[in-house]
């Protein structure tokens, strides 16, 4: 330790850089977390403490009053149910249509593969507004306007390209050899798929499904254009935005934020895999 002859300047500089790196990371994390902390604080404080002016920045008056009032107000509970129905419906329908297509994309060479992929990229880039307004009229003519089915169909259309691309990349990660081995030992193509490929692909497919659910849970515009009485939660919050007290809005924001954190916690290991492989 006492060899003073060694030049320690680069070491010191490196140490300082490490400290700086840690501090920057912590600062960015704080920027991400503080708003979530504050909305939770707002949603979990009593009504009179929300009316005070310098609002307390620490959890001093913890109560479920605001949140209960939000959940008890008309339409919110039903909207929560609708959101779940639409989310699960979208997840199932897009998996049902998208996973086979993803498998085909990963395993087979077929005529029209290139145009199909281009079509998927184009479909993925299609803005929601462009679909919602005409779909509202189409759904009116076939009499499913203002139902959860209408929203499920819209959300599936939006999620399908991504589901196909993600599941294709998941299946690409399953070695072809194991499937062939299963075939050699007498599995039917479907049996090989169900018993060998699917178990290996399942975690990735599950992550893709959560992703679909999140997209459906978050979608605001289409859901509020396609429904009147059967609103999903975001649509309900959006339409009652103008004539509701601040406490209601904060509770609404909190109710939308919390599930998202849980979703991300579930699929955090797949975040880069999914995006990383869909993008090329």
């Amino acid at each position: 330790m006492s060899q003073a002859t060694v030049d320690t300047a680069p070491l010191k500089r490196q140490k300082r850089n490490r400290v700086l790196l840690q501090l920057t990371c912590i600062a960015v994390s704080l920027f991400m977390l503080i708003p979530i902390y504050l909305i939770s604080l707002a949603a979990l404080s009593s009504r009179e403490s929300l009316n005070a002016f310098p609002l307390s920045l620490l959890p001093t008056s913890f109560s479920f009053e605001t949140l209960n009032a939000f959940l008890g107000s008309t339409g919110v509970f039903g909207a929560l149910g609708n959101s779940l129905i639409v989310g699960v419906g979208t997840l199932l329908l897009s998996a049902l249509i998208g996973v086979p297509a993803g498998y085909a994309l990963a395993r087979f060479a077929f005529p029209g593969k290139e145009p199909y992929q281009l079509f998927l990229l184009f479909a993925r880039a299609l803005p929601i507004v462009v679909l919602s307004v005409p779909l509202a009229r189409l759904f009116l003519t076939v009499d499913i306007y203002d139902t959860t089915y209408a929203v499920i169909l819209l959300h599936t259309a939006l999620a399908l390209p991504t589901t196909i691309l993600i599941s294709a990349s998941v299946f690409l990660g399953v070695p072809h050899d194991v499937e062939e081995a299963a075939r050699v030992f007498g599995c039917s193509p479907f049996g090989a798929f169900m018993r060998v490929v699917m178990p290996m692909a399942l975690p990735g497919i599950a992550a893709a499904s959560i992703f679909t659910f999140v997209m459906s849970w978050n979608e605001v515009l289409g859901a509020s254009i396609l429904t009147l009485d059967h609103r999903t939660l975001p649509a309900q919050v959006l339409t009652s935005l103008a004539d509701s007290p601040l406490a209601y809005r904060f509770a609404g924001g909190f109710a939308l934020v919390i599930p998202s954190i849980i979703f991300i916690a579930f699929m955090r290991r797949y975040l880069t895999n999914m995006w990383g492989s869909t993008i090329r």
Partner: protein
Amino acid sequence: MTVQAPPAPAKAATPVRRRSVPAAVWLIGPSVVFMTLLLGWPVIEGVMQAFRNEQGFTLEFVTRMVQDPYFWPAVRNTLLLIAVMIPIQFAFAIGMALLLRANPRLNKVHFFIWAIPLALSDLAAGLVWLSIFNDRGYLNSALAWLGIEGVSWLAYDNQTTMFICVLIAELWRATSLVLVIVVAGLQGIPKDYDEAAQVFGASFWQRLRHVTLPLLKPSLQVALILRTILAFQTFAVAQALTGQNFPLVVGETYRWYTGLQNPNVAAALALVILAVSMLTSIFYLRALREKTQGGTR
């Protein structure tokens, strides 16, 4: 818009491939039908809604759209938001991805926290920041604790602060999308290149400019396209933060459809978004084209 099978390659396919064609068709078919019905048809229907009334072709709805006093402010706000937000967002995301690559302590935790907004809707983000920016919100409270007089951040006559509030909320929410794509891209780049450049004495900026960024180009291209198209669709943030005071194009579509009960003008506005989104994608694809690009994979 449907997928048409080019006839020529089918004949040239090997016997093995020809056998697998029917299976593939069965697997792909439902998705093609579904997307044609629910993506292709509405787009055509939308064009009809925007340009046709009972008499046939008309520009009536387009004129009404353009003459609406909110239209040009909405276009201006949307473009301004994108022009300011996208560069900042990409600088942040690349910076954050490089921070993570430098392997700080707890980098998994940091990445998780930075990815949380990925699953947030823009409505939720707007409400979150509303609790901070409203007149009696947390920002003004914090200022009051420090003895500074607050500002009406979201007041109608404060266009600049309103813009900054929307910008911050969108930066907070949507940077994580770019971050995740860039992180995924960085993972695909071997560290050897960077280290080689370092050995030859390249400075940090030189390595970033000449090694890392060029290799990241495909990821950045996709992130740019996705992010810009999504940014054109921003509206619930502004709706939650400012009501109608900060009009954006998609917000106008919503207003024409629900408030003014005019689906035709709403469809015309939606087509504006579609056209602009397509043009930007094409622009990005051309501007960032790779020299050795062979298809989509």
